């Protein structure tokens, strides 16, 4: 096992491609039946890129994820908290991550998860309405990560970046073609999303990665705040 290109992410050669791990920030945490490797008294949790769009992008060789040791993260669409828990590993105990989701059913699981990790906080809120959770963000964050299946996901993302992302901070957006328009060809939807992001004055596009074969018809965009 050797360090990958990003903070606290490790990789190991496997039969097929690479296995990805994060250095566990909280000892003896195992929330998703993931494999855990112990090496020199340090635990490492395995990530399944098929369950996490962030790590699918890492496996596909994205150039920048913005999330580092000590980062503060706003995570929109955290769901059960699978990816969020690994982000929490990357940022370590000095970092902080606010996990937002609208669906009560999944936030219930998220609350239990966050209780075990001091750097995570759950929030039941709608990311269409940033005003409803701005009181929970004391200063602008280093990273906004968004993974929601909504039609207007790009404009929701830009709205949140405008309001909460600090200068020079990174925004990560997972675009699901099928939830923007099922009838259109995914490539066309991605092109339109790109143009919409490109038009935004406050951010520049840094990178994008298609997530196949881990996730069908998805692209992860990385933008940087001017």
């Amino acid at each position, binding site marked *: 096992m050797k360090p990958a290109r990003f903070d606290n992410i490790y990789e190991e050669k496997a039969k097929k491609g690479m296995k990805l791990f994060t250095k566990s920030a909280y000892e003896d945490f195992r929330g998703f039946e993931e494999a855990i490797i112990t090496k020199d008294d340090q635990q490492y949790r395995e990530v399944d890129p098929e369950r996490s769009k962030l790590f699918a992008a890492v496996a596909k060789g994205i150039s920048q994820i913005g999330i580092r040791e000590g980062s503060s993260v706003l995570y929109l669409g955290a769901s059960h908290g699978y990816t969020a828990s690994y982000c929490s590993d990357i940022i370590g105990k000095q970092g902080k991550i606010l996990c937002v989701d609208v669906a009560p059913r999944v936030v219930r699981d998220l*609350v239990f998860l966050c209780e075990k990790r001091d750097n995570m906080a759950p929030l039941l809120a709608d990311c269409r309405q940033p005003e409803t959770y701005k009181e929970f963000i004391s200063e602008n964050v280093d990273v906004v990560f968004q993974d929601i299946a909504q039609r207007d996901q790009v404009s929701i993302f830009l709205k949140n970046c405008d309001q909460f992302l600090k200068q020079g901070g990174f925004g990560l957006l997972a675009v699901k073609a099928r939830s923007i328009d099922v009838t259109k060809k995914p490539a066309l939807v991605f092109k339109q999303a790109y143009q919409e992001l490109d038009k935004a004055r406050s951010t520049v596009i840094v990178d994008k990665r298609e997530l196949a074969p881990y996730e069908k018809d998805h692209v992860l965009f990385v933008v940087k705040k001017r």
Partner: protein
Amino acid sequence: MEWQRLREKAFTTTKEALAASVNDNHLIIQAVASMEDLDRTSNTLIKRLREWYSLYGPEFSHAVTDNEAFTRRVLEKSKQEQLQELQCKQSMGADLQEQDVQEMLALAGMIRAMHEERARLERYLETIMQRHCPNITAIAGPTIAARLLQEAGSLRQLAIIQASTIQMYGAEKALFRHLKTGAKPPKHGHIINHPLIAKAQAKDKGKIARALADKLSIAAKVDYFKGDPIGDELRKALEERFG
């Protein structure tokens, strides 16, 4: 530290919001899903009971086709009594020891408890449906109405969607097969169990399904926006037209 304070606040707010998010929709959906689970499980178990008990008294399983009645008789009557009732002179079943029979009866007891629980659940569903959405319940009865609510996810959603969607709920497989391959489109989903459709002739079923779904759609809107009761009126209109 600032983060600790915000984190505590996020927990408090979120927990409050989660507690407040539970409503009648959730209770109905869980109750109707539990009813389906009970049906499925008790059917599996009763198939086993019939196989098992047939080693001992095969005549019975053959004579009583109704599952509930079968379970009751196994529990209440001895083999001798049952054979007499059936006027059967020679049984194909083995003479088993008391201990072996007891195990079968234990299974039968559990199945009977499931049947009782299901009946109780049905009564509960009726009260809660009467409270939450009296109009669609008046037209379709508590079980079918609850199934539709389950498919839609909430009364709000059921009030928003068009009548044709209500007509198709529960027939998704057939509907998408139709869209994909051009096979014959389905006429009805869950509402097929409604007495008006169930007893109609095949040629009328589609027409009744459409009309019924229309009235249900109206009733759902009245239920959601808390209008004056209209369910009984709509049901009577349907019964006059098709009954």
